[in-house]
């Protein structure tokens, strides 16, 4: 016979909220109810699931470190139920309350019967935070090259003739061929090449392919996203991209393939951007970004992919503005690299990101060189601002003369940060250590990056201070009714998902990446490489990755929410609006961050 209050409570508690009335009634029949008074110690190794009904319970580690606080709807004991291993934590009642003890057999029965409940507790235990929900179907907006490219490779050798090429094209019903020599891609040949380079020049049908092909073509990895291919094609005004798999050519992607796969793809925005002839035109394009973001969200595009797309659009706007600037100012007087820092560099830009950019120049920025790039920076940065990417309040922009430097100038600046680090300087400078080239010379950029990484890998004092800076902020301890519970036991309304979550992970991962000399700047990419190189434990890497994805996802959803209500987009989450599931996930994410911080502290902040 069920007690209405018990079943009602279970019906409102994740993950039991998925059960129907009959199942809830059955479950409640296996519950014992106990009342704890403040100061009581809870016997936790009882092989039952503890469900907090009312009151507050504090969990301490065997070293008496405050681990977390449990409140209504929180669980304990699933660890032991799942693994059979006891632990030495202590759980103390802080505010009088009722707990439900669910018998082990009923817990296991429930897990066995309801896959989602099993998954919930497994993930709660193993901190595999993502994928509580069923995996969504691959969205067409996040298609990868491998999803649409023809699984056949049509290739010809360079010494074969134009006629043979034409015949192969007709026979295979394709408009382009890969040209391979000893299984190595050396060029591509399109039907347009046959027309404009052979027929138009009255060359004979026996002309060798090698004479008329396009040499050293652009190519793209088959695991890249489709919109990256669109970006690359638009930028270079090409319609054919050889596709590679681990460096080996495996097929051809054409503009037609892309159009066929997604007629109304909003990421055509990128193509449109590359066709604009004025800043005003770009501004019009950029007005579609918010609508695009909402579409992406409706299509359940994961936050990190959405961040990637938003960044790609910012890249495209930047590239086009640089092109337009050059149309206005003439050819640049020397080679340059347009750099992005921070989130644009890491490819995890959000909708409220501001500009963080700079110029790396081949020559010293004096005289006409200085004037030219000052004008270029002005044009591009103001243009980006017009397109809705706010000017950087900290003046980290190419318009700042201190951020238009030669390779020597930049190298010297990084050398100073690294050789004589001060905590205050590093707090401000850490953003500079995530950098990526957006337009211009890759070689120049690579030289700078090599130079930086060579220094950081051998600079324990620098890493010490960088780690200290990364440890300045901590993740909150958990949730407490309508408050966020801070490490110092205080309560605070509102959770800044960026400052108290995402940035903490970015900062930690940067320390490791600079220590290991990893070129990748994307946080997820860094984590993968750090695990692959054995710098950090692969489980820790996976946990941080999951926590990062979860926080990014919540921020992305918060931004969508703000957009739809036409609010200003902010990172501040109201704890009263956090769902039961998100609360469990967030708590675990914070625990992952706290653990990772203490590892960084042990590794980089010991006495030097």
């Amino acid at each position, binding site marked *: 016979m069920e*007690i209405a*209050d*018990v079943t009602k409570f279970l019906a409102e508690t994740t993950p039991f909220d998925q059960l129907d009335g009959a199942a809830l009634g059955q479950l409640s029949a296996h519950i014992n109810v*106990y009342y704890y008074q403040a100061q009581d110690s809870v016997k936790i190794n009882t092989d039952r699931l503890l469900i907090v009904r009312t009151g507050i319970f504090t969990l301490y580690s065997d070293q008496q470190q405050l681990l977390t606080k449990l409140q209504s709807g929180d669980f304990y004991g699933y660890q032991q139920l799942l693994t059979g291993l006891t632990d030495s934590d202590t759980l103390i009642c802080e505010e009088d309350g*009722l707990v439900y003890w669910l018998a082990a057999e009923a817990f296991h029965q429930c897990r066995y019967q309801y896959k989602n409940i099993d998954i919930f507790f497994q993930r709660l235990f193993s901190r595999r935070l993502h994928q509580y929900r069923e995996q969504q179907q691959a969205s067409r907006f996040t298609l990868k090259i491998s999803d649409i490219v023809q699984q056949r490779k049509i290739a010809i050798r360079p010494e074969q003739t134009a006629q043979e090429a034409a015949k192969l094209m007709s026979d295979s019903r394709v408009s382009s061929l890969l040209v391979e020599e000893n299984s190595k891609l050396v060029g591509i040949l399109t039907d347009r090449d046959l027309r404009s380079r052979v027929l138009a020049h009255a060359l004979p049908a026996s002309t060798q392919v090698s004479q008329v092909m396009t040499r050293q073509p652009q190519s793209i990895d088959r695991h890249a996203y489709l919109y990256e291919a669109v970006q690359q094609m638009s930028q270079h005004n090409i319609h054919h991209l050889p596709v590679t798999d681990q460096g080996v050519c495996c097929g051809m992607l054409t503009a037609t393939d892309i159009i066929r796969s997604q007629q109304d793809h909003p990421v055509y925005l990128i193509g449109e951007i590359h066709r604009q002839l004025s800043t005003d035109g770009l501004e019009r394009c950029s007005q579609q970004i918010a609508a695009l973001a909402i579409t992406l969200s409706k299509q359940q595009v994961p936050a990190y992919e959405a961040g990637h797309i938003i960044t790609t659009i910012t890249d495209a706007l930047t590239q086009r503005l640089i092109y337009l600037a050059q149309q206005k100012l003439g050819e640049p007087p020397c080679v340059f690299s347009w750099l992005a820092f921070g989130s644009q560099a890491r490819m995890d830009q959000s909708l409220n990101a501001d500009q963080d950019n700079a110029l790396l120049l081949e020559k010293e920025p004096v005289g006409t060189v200085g004037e030219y790039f000052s004008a270029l920076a002005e044009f591009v940065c103001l243009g980006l601002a017009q397109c809705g990417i706010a000017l950087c309040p900290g003046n980290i922009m190419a318009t700042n003369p201190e951020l238009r430097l030669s390779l020597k100038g930049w190298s010297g600046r990084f050398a100073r940060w690294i050789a004589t680090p001060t905590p205050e300087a590093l707090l401000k400078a850490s953003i500079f250590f995530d950098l990526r080239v957006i337009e211009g010379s890759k070689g120049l950029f690579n030289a700078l990056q090599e130079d930086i990484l060579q220094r950081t890998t051998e600079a324990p004092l620098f890493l010490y201070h960088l780690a200290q800076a990364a440890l300045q902020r901590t993740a909150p301890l958990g949730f407490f009714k309508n408050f966020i519970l801070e490490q110092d036991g205080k309560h605070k309304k509102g959770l800044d998902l960026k400052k108290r979550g995402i940035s903490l992970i970015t900062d930690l991962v940067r320390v490791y990446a600079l220590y290991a000399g990893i070129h990748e700047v994307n946080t997820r990419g860094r984590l993968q490489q750090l695990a692959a190189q054995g710098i950090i434990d692969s489980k820790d890497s996976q946990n941080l990755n999951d926590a990062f994805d979860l926080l990014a996802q919540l921020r992305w959803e918060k931004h969508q929410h703000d957009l739809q209500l036409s609010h200003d987009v902010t990172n501040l989450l109201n704890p009263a609006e956090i769902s039961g599931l998100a609360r469990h996930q967030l708590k675990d994410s914070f625990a992952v961050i706290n653990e990772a911080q203490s590892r960084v502290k042990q590794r980089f902040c010991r006495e030097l």
Partner: protein
Amino acid sequence: MLSWLLRKSTALSEVVNHFINTPFPASSTPVDQANFLALDLELTGLNPRKDHIVSIGWVPVRGQEIVLSEAKHYLINSPVSVGQSAVYHGLHDHQLKNAHDLAEILSELLAQYAGYIFVAHNSRLDEQCLRFACQRCFGKAPRFRFIDTMQMEWQRLLRQGKVVKHDALKLPNCLKRHGLPAMANHQALEDAYSSALLLLSQLKLGGNTMTLSDLYLLSR
């Protein structure tokens, strides 16, 4: 499960004898080792001699844990109409058509919970009703050992020097005072569960050394 008991009318009085012959725990027993049964009756009126039981709900408390797997709620065949009492317990005559025989339910109660200390909120009426009901069904009634969560609450408030208004002792108000979740009132099982919750809190307030004799004193 009790069919053997119901086969003969003599067997029925066996149940009473079993209950009578099962000793209650010694009054020196610490409260956390005693077994309790929180119960509540809904009646056709307030006169135990004349009025009838409409429903009964109970839930045991062992080792200070409320054992929900044994929570029971039965509707009882009443020889008279529930009449105006339906206003309180919400049970109407048509709902009682498939109800149980009082003797059957009382047998289950006495057989299963011999040696248990019964708990009710304002237990006097429930105790008298149970005794009359046993008398009617079995020809004799055992002595029950009851403790009263309302009396305990009254004494507790008096000791704190508070002026106790009558309303303050109603079950929902007691739950609220103890920070316990509010329940639907006047359903036998919900009320039994509520008084069980109240008991848990009262036992905790009594401290670790409390024995049954302390409890009897408090509940007088």
